[in-house]
Structure formats: structure tokens, C-alpha cells
């Protein structure tokens, strides 16, 4: 599992994260929920080692962060991470060049699932298509964990549905998924666990099905309670 314990991060004299702790088990879909600027992306980037943290520790499968550990974890950031001049075909080639766990068949399935054109230039993709391609890059790796940063933000309805379907497919089966979003609507019933953030603190951390069976509240209900005040 991904274990984040008491991580802190100051950025330009602002405490973006002050003491965040939560767990994201393998095989379950965990979502980090919080309004904009709550530090969601920073947490993902910290887990991926993209930004160093000022305090606390992150362990994946019990191991501290190291280049080898990133064989077992994929990240779908909220922006495209390949040069615009590259064609999709080159992007796939790059992934297979550098990611030992890259699964070419899965990539093919996803490319057709999302109906993406291999000859297109990355720089000229629409926001929705770019997000889909980003997902392909993330999901086509045989990894234990997948981190996704706002996969739905600014995406048209049909693309959203297509993307949501990925969560039900075997692509996600017995993998740990950690997804950040600030509108839970699309994946309300897909998420196993919800971790709610505010001002760099974890204010709620609950199992969604238990919340429904014990309190009959949906994630959105809890959000209304927590973020209303």
C-alpha cells in the first residue's frame, strides 16, 4: 500500500501541506478530495518524488521512495508530459523505451478504446483527447499503483464517461488507485475510500460503502457538511 505519514511542505511562505497522513491500499480506489489549492496535486507529486517534502515520510509497499519503486507506480498528471512536436506514436515508443513494465497490448486496447489516432501530433490534441492519451500512458503499465490528478477536469461529458469506464475494467483490478478530484460526481459509486483535505490538513478519511450503510450519506453529502462552513 501507499503510506503517507505526516508530510509537510511549505511553498513560497505558505504551508501547502502541514501534517498529511493517509493510506491507499493496493486493489482499492482511494480519492483525495479537496477544493482547489488544498494541496491535492502536491501530495501526488510528492509521492511521485516530483517535489521534495519538507517533513514526514512516504512509503510504497513498505519501501522508501527510490527509482526502482517507480517501476511499480504510474502517474497520470493533470497536463501532458510529452513534447508537443512528438506524434502519439513517438510517445508510445518513448514509454516502451523507458518503462520496463510498459504493456504494448494494453496500450493498443486503450488507444482503440479511446479511439486515438497514432499519427496525430501531441501538441494539437484537444484537452479531452490529451487527457485520454495521458490515461493511456498511465494505464498501459503493469504497475501496482496508479495516481491520477484531476482526470476529469475540463473534459466533455462523453469523454468523462469513457474515462470512468476505465475504472470498472480489469485495468484497475487489484491495483491501488489514488485519484484526486474536486467534483466527485462522476465516480461517486466507483470510489472505495475518500480522503478529504482542507488547508493542508486531512479533515475526513472514510470508507464510502461504510459511510453509506452506517450513515446513509453519499460522498457529496459529506462534502457538503465539511466544506459548507
Amino acid at each position, binding site marked *: 500500500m501507499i503510506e503517507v505519514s505526516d508530510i509537510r511542505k511549505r511553498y513560497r511562505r505558505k504551508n501547502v501541506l502541514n501534517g498529511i497522513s493517509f493510506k491507499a491500499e493496493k486493489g482499492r480506489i482511494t480519492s483525495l478530495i479537496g477544493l482547489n489549492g488544498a494541496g491535492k496535486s502536491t501530495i501526488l507529486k510528492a509521492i511521485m518524488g516530483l517535489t521534495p517534502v519538507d517533513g514526514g515520510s512516504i512509503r510504497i509497499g513498505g519501501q522508501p521512495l527510490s527509482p526502482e519503486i517507480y517501476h511499480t507506480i504510474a502517474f497520470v*498528471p493533470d497536463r501532458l508530459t510529452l513534447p508537443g512536436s512528438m506524434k502519439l506514436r513517438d510517445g508510445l515508443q518513448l514509454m516502451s523505451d523507458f518503462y520496463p513494465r510498459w504493456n504494448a497490448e494494453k496500450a493498443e486496447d486503450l488507444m482503440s478504446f479511446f479511439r486515438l489516432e497514432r499519427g496525430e501530433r501531441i501538441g494539437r490534441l484537444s484537452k479531452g483527447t490529451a487527457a485520454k492519451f495521458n490515461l493511456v500512458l498511465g494505464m498501459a503499465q503493469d504497475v501496482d499503483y496508479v495516481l491520477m490528478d484531476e482526470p476529469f477536469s475540463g473534459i466533455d461529458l462523453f469523454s468523462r464517461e469513457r474515462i470512468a469506464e476505465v475504472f470498472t475494467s480489469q485495468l484497475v483490478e487489484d491495483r491501488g488507485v489514488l485519484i484526486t478530484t474536486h467534483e466527485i460526481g462522476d465516480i461517486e459509486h466507483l470510489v472505495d475510500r475518500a480522503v478529504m483535505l482542507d488547508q493542508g490538513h486531512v479533515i475526513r478519511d472514510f470508507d464510502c460503502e461504510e459511510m453509506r450503510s452506517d450513515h446513509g450519506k453519499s460522498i457529496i453529502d459529506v462534502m457538503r457538511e465539511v466544506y459548507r462552513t
Partner: protein
Amino acid sequence: MKTYLKLVHLEIYRFRLVLLGLMAMTSAIQLIGLQLAMRDRLQAIRGQLTREGLSLAQYAERYNGIPLGEIWSHRESWMTFPIVICIGGIGLYIFLIWYRDWFGRSAFVYRLLMLPHSRFLLYVSKFTALMTFVFSLFALQIGIVAVQMTMYRLRMPDELRVPRTLVDTIRGMDLVLFIPVRLHEFLLVYGFGSVFVLLLFTTILMERSYRFKGLLAGLAYTAGTLMLVAWMWAQAERGTALLYPSELLAAAIALMLLNAALSLWLGRWLLRTKVAA
């Protein structure tokens, strides 16, 4: 190892158009330059022949031939100008090879920093790629001189032609500053040069980690090293220092090796712990 080579390929591939551009520009200007230089020189000689009523053979007897190296006279800037442009281009790319990942339209730095390989490979592969550009331009220059020698052989009349080896031709031109003909000159120039590239690489990473303070520290250190080496060079030149010139050289080389090791180590540490996407 394969990952390292693939990263090197990636860096080379991304710079290929600029590199080809530099190569095309250099070849064009230098070859045209020689063409013009030969045309001017031959015109001048023909003018002199008619004025003094000499035959080519008599002229050659009196003034003996003109080797390729001496054809250039005032046009030699056609040779050095493209070289300076290439040096400027590569010098600029020392910074761009890093900053383009951060500031390009796409945050390619995310992808690079997330690769499941040691980040030090980024440092080494970018350095290797840069050195490949330098030495490919070096090789191109030698190729161009070879072509120029054939142009010279075809265009110059037999009487004026002075056969010279390629190395002798280079020796006779300003080019020898950039294309050394002596081994230890080459090792010193390109050895010290590559250490300064390492110093600049680490300066960039210092900037990425500590922003302006880091940049300042890096540049100060690099400039300091440059001045120290220059001072050692001057001391050797004066020859009155307590250290003999050969000892000064040994000290300078030791200093540079130390700097290379320091840059590599610090760069590696910064990439691992401090650099952020």
C-alpha cells in the same frame, strides 16, 4: 546502460534539426568562402601576370606556390565566423538542454523526473549528448577541410599548387585554435571545456533547487574556477612561481578532475533530493 543510451538518443533526436542547421550553415559558408578566396587570389595573380608580362611558371618560380592555408588572407573570417556561431549555439544549448524541459509548452520534466531510473542518468545523458554535438561539429569541420583540399586541388593551377597534408593545412590556419593538431593541446582544451560544461550543468541544477541564490553560487564558483585556472596559466607563463610549470599543470588538472567529480556528485544529489518539477 540501455536506458542511458536511449536517453542520449532522445536528447540527440530533440536537437537534430538545430544541429543539422548549424552543420549546413558551417559547410555552406566555409566552402563558398574558399571558392571566393581562390577566385580573388587567382584574379589578382592573373592581373599581376599581365601587368608584369610574366608566365605562370615564371611567377611560380619567383614567388613559389600558395598552399591552401595561405589562400584565405583577409577572407579567413569566412572560416572562423561559422565556428563562432556553432560555439555560441552549443554554449546556449548547455542551458537550453535543461530549461526546455521545464519551460516547454509541455512539462516534459515531469516525465523525465518520473522515469523509473536513477535521475543521474538524465545528467549524464544530457552531458553525453552535448559532447556528441561538439565532436560531431569537430568531425564535420575536418570533413570540410578535406573537401576544401580537393576543391583546392581541382581549382588551383598546377604551378601554384603546394601539396600539404590535412594536418599541415589546419596548422597553417586560425582553425588550429579550434581544431588542435597537438594531442595535449586537444586534451587540455576539450578536457577543461567539458569540465566547465559540468560546472554549468550543476549551476543550472543549483538554480532549479535554490532559485536565484543557487544560480549565484554556481556562477560564482564557475567564474572562480575559471579565474584560478587562468591565474595558474599566467603563473606558468611567467615561470617564476614556486611551482614549476609542469607542477602547475598537474595542479590545474587535479583541480579540474576534482571539479568534475564535485559537479557530478552535487548534480546527482540535487537531482535526487532537491530538484522539483
